[in-house]
């Protein structure tokens, strides 16, 4: 075991993993974190906490992670390269590990233009691939990026993200292979709506044997309304939504229920895809739906490993 986290044990024992996303509050409010965390208890193998998602300043992912740990819920903390340089990232990671964080997800981070501080200077001192390398070096070689020895290494299960739908399509698998070479242990994808295209992508992955080098979790975004799905189609870069799903949501008498049905159908198809090792449910501001989806998809109870 690299980190000995629950997520690592579930994935390494070959079971179909479920993780769920938690968005930190815009305030120093630990109760919100505890409440959202409790809603996800027993539904997910680990809870993934965003790091100032869409470049909006919120409670730090590490702090939220520690709050979840106190409730015996396992966090995956996201770390983006937008806000911190290599010094700050390494220092925060050491602190996070010392506080009991075992899973880290490495991302570039949304550009600050999309957030509430568009005038901010961005950092991007290192990119997401470098970040994976840095974490791996700290964990496996017990060294900082520039080579200084660490007294105690951070024992981390290292995650990365990939978008099967982003352009240029031909480059996506090459980039994923780079992330695997850099040292990631698991990969979460962008939300899957277009299962056909996702299957094609997974086929390329399995053809190259990459699914044996890394655990891939498909992103699931529960949709609440026709407006939300149109927004995802039109404004969220790198999300591909088939017209059929938009039409179904537009015609639905109970859009929330229809959104859940669509999710369940997608998960059913995903479960059959060779090489796919789990799902990651991103139900930001709709945490209650996670339990419903996990139950109805036959993914409950979560394995005790």
């Amino acid at each position, binding site marked *: 075991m690299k980190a000995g986290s629950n997520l690592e044990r579930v994935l390494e024992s070959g079971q179909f993993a479920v993780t769920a996303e938690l968005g930190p509050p815009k305030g120093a409010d630990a109760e919100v974190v505890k409440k959202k965390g409790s809603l996800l208890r027993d539904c997910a193998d680990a809870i993934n906490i965003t790091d100032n998602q869409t470049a909006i300043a919120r409670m730090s992912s590490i702090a939220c992670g520690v709050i979840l740990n106190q409730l015996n819920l396992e966090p995956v903390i996201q770390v983006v390269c937008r806000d911190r340089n290599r010094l700050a990232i390494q220092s925060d990671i050491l602190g996070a590990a010392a506080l009991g964080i075992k899973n880290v997800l490495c991302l570039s981070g949304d550009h600050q233009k999309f957030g509430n501080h*568009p*005038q901010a*200077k961005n950092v991007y001192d290192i990119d997401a691939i470098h970040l994976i390398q840095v974490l791996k070096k700290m964990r496996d070689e017990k060294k900082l990026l520039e080579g200084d020895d660490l007294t105690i290494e951070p024992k981390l299960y290292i995650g990365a993200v990939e978008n099967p739908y982003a352009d240029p399509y031909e480059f996506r698998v090459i980039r994923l292979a780079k992330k695997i070479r850099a040292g990631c242990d698991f990969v979460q994808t962008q939300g899957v709506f277009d299962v056909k295209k996702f299957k094609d992508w997974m086929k390329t992955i399995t053809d190259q044997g990459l699914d044996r080098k890394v655990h891939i979790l498909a992103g699931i975004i529960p949709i609440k309304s026709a407006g939300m799905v149109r927004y995802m189609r039109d404004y969220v870069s790198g999300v591909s939504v088939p017209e059929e799903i938009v039409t179904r949501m537009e015609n639905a008498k109970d859009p929330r229920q229809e959104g859940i049905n669509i999710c369940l159908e997608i998960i059913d198809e995903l479960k059959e895809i060779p090489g796919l090792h789990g799902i990651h449910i991103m139900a930001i501001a709709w945490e209650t739906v996670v339990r419903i989806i996990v139950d109805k998809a036959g993914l409950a109870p979560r394995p005790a490993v």
Partner: protein
Amino acid sequence: MIITKQKPFEEILKFLESSPRVFIAGCTLCATTCKTGGEEEAKKIEKKLQDKGKVVSGWVILDPACHILNNKKYFRENKEKLDQADSILVLACGNGVQAVGESMDKKVYPGCDTLFLGEIIRFGNYEERCQLCGECILDKTGGICPITRCSKSLLNGPCGGAEDGKCEIDPEIECGWQLIIDQLEKQDKLHLLEEIIPPKDWSKSRDGGLRRLTIGRKEK
């Protein structure tokens, strides 16, 4: 002026490995002044490349290398010389290299490293003065730029690291804020130092993505 420095010849040879025939393009402006990409330097590089067995199909000092329309016209008129080359070695700033690349369908390689936007103190002695941050605050700082001259780019300096007017990172570097204070004192404008300069709008700098300016037509 854009200050450039010619790359070590070995480095140039390395990226020209798969280009037996080379065309050289310099620039009449900054690179000529810096003596990194003028006529003299183009001829020197031509000779060195020939000594290493390369065929130099021709050279030109573009006027200037960052002018796409001019470049296109020249390349059209000298198509033959360019057709004979596998690639173009550009002795100019990074902008010049890319403008040449956009002016014709040919591989381009950088002959220089682009260092900074600076002033000529005397020939061979250049110093950075502007970081092109997109929103000038020289009115508040006695005409001396803290973004460039303070090593931390502090807007409300100096920090606690200055000693005898020198920066903590290098005793050869003057403390930018010491310079600003001295200048404001001379101008009897020290009161400006009491103002808290607000956080900068970095979206106008490179942090906001590719910058564009269109004058005379619809401005973006």
